[in-house]
């Protein structure tokens, strides 16, 4: 049981017209693991993430979650099995407060008839948001409008939202792009906490030193194929660049 990966994608193929974005990519991630997904521009990272988070559909290939074959027809299907995605643009509504963003599309209503009419339970949403953020060590007032937050706080709010709803895995696209040094440190710390809570975390990034620092394992894509994977502790930035460019991973050959 324990050797069944949480998410296991095999032979994923996706083409857009004549463009072969993915030509049989393999990818897997287990619980309590941070996996980095790297590759040059056009290697298919984003396409793979979109497919695994339900916003795009593969032309071929199989995706298993907890060993069971799944077919995502939309992001809601991925969510239903506990997969959340933090996009690079964060997808936050700046005029709404942090709690409203955390519960966006999943609002809690008060019990009874008024609840059926859609009357929101704002205090419960604010409280639960505060509790979840407290557990993750995020210091944001749940009632603060997002546009009043700094870049790092916004990123933290987006990660906390994903962590709150994800029961199995979180995908993150460039989670620290546009952040300062200290803010980046805070977000990386937050990502480790999510991992330590038993969730799988998948990070796409071009920042290779950071990938080596934060992840447990790194999967390299090249021209739509998985060319290898390596434990972060056993690789260097040069190894990763060589693998991304040539498709040959030194530690694999060894």
């Amino acid at each position, binding site marked *: 049981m324990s050797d069944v990966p949480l998410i296991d994608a095999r032979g994923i193929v996706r083409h857009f017209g004549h463009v072969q974005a993915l030509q049989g990519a393999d990818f897997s991630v287990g619980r309590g693991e941070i996996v980095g997904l790297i590759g040059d521009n056009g290697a298919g990272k984003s396409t793979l993430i979109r497919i695994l988070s339900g916003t795009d559909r593969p032309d071929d290939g199989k995706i298993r979650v907890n060993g069971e074959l799944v077919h995502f027809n*939309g*992001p*809601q299907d991925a*969510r*239903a099995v*506990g997969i959340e*995605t933090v*996009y690079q*643009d964060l*997808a*936050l*509504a*700046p*005029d*709404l407060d942090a709690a*409203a*963003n955390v519960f*966006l*599309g*999943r*609002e809690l*209503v008060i019990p009874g008839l008024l609840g059926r*009419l*859609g*009357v*929101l339970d*704002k205090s419960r949403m604010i409280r*639960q948001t505060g509790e*979840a953020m*407290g*557990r*993750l*060590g*995020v*210091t944001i007032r749940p009632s*603060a*409008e997002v*546009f*009043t*937050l*700094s870049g*790092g*706080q916004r990123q933290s709010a987006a990660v906390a939202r994903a*962590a*709150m*709803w*994800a*029961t199995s895995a979180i995908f993150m696209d460039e989670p620290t792009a546009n952040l300062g040094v*200290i*803010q980046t440190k*805070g977000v990386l*710390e*937050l990502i480790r*906490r999510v991992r*330590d*809570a*038993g969730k799988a975390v998948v990070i796409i990034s071009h920042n290779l030193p950071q990938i080596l620092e934060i992840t447990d394992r790194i999967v390299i894509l090249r021209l739509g194929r998985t060319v290898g994977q390596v434990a972060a502790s056993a690789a260097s930035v040069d190894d990763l660049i060589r693998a991304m460019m040539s498709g040959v991973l030194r530690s694999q050959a060894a």
Partner: protein
Amino acid sequence: MSKPSAPFGGFTTTTELPPDERDAGSTLRRLRSIFSSQSAALFLVLVALAVFFSVLRPDAFPRVANVMNMATNASILLVLAVGSTFVILTGGIDLSINGVLVFSGVIAAMAMVAVGGDNPGVLLVGLVCGIAAGTAWGLMNGFLVAKARIPALIVTLGTMGMSLGLALLLTGGVDISDVPESLVLTVGSGRVAGVPILVIITAVVFVVGALVLTFTRFGRYTYAVGSSPEACRRASIDVTAHLIKVYMLAGMLSGLAGYLSLARFATTTLSGHLTDNLQVIAGVVIGGTSLFGGSGGMMGTLIGIIIPVMLLDGFVVLGLPPFWQQVAVGAVLIGAVYFDQLRRELRNR
């Protein structure tokens, strides 16, 4: 998964964010609280105007009759403005409300003439037909804006012309004045405890609109769609469906306003609402609702509608040319939008 997962147990430490991180938003927040109290500031303007006119004409302005007169003048505009507040909060605009108002009034009048007689049943038929006609136009607006993705400005400019033109075609350009007398005597000019029924109906519409906007999922999605449609789509909110509902609501309220206009003026007033749309949009925007969507609210709209009405009444009472009201409202409108832009620049810096 519909419930938040809670297996975070074991985290007791809290990463203290550095002070600059924590305070990054506070200056902005303070600046914003000044600007977002725009409706509070507006309320002070309203009170100041009332005091000003009352001091200059204590014998005429602060009279119950005059206040009721102002409330009646504001009522139909406010019904329209409740719908427009929702539309503008989504980042849209509805120019068609006055055309739809006239069209719905014509449909209501023709329906009542067709049924004939003068009894509550006939009045109800008129109401249902008027509201149905307005809602149908709203559905068309919503579909064209949200589904066909045509800019709201163009869609509603088009439907404004279409609805007004069709109203003129249906009537041959001649107002229908064959309105049931009981409608005019009750809804149109009746009073309960001294308060015009027209004002009571408007108050109910306003309160329901404000409650829906502030406390329900529908209201929250209205803000959210205006704030970031993309964030809504990622959160699996059906943005298209919500926009269509919002335009339908505006159309429905235009239909109701058409019925109220019919009751008040005892005729279809084909050419009597030509600038209602602009007055309503000006009121909503003066009230602090952003033309860019996402921020604003119903209290601001109430004040934004009342200020121009009070200015007009005040100028008339003072014996000044009432045309000054248009000048003043125009200036206030420009100022309100300028403040909104300043606020946006501050937060986007």
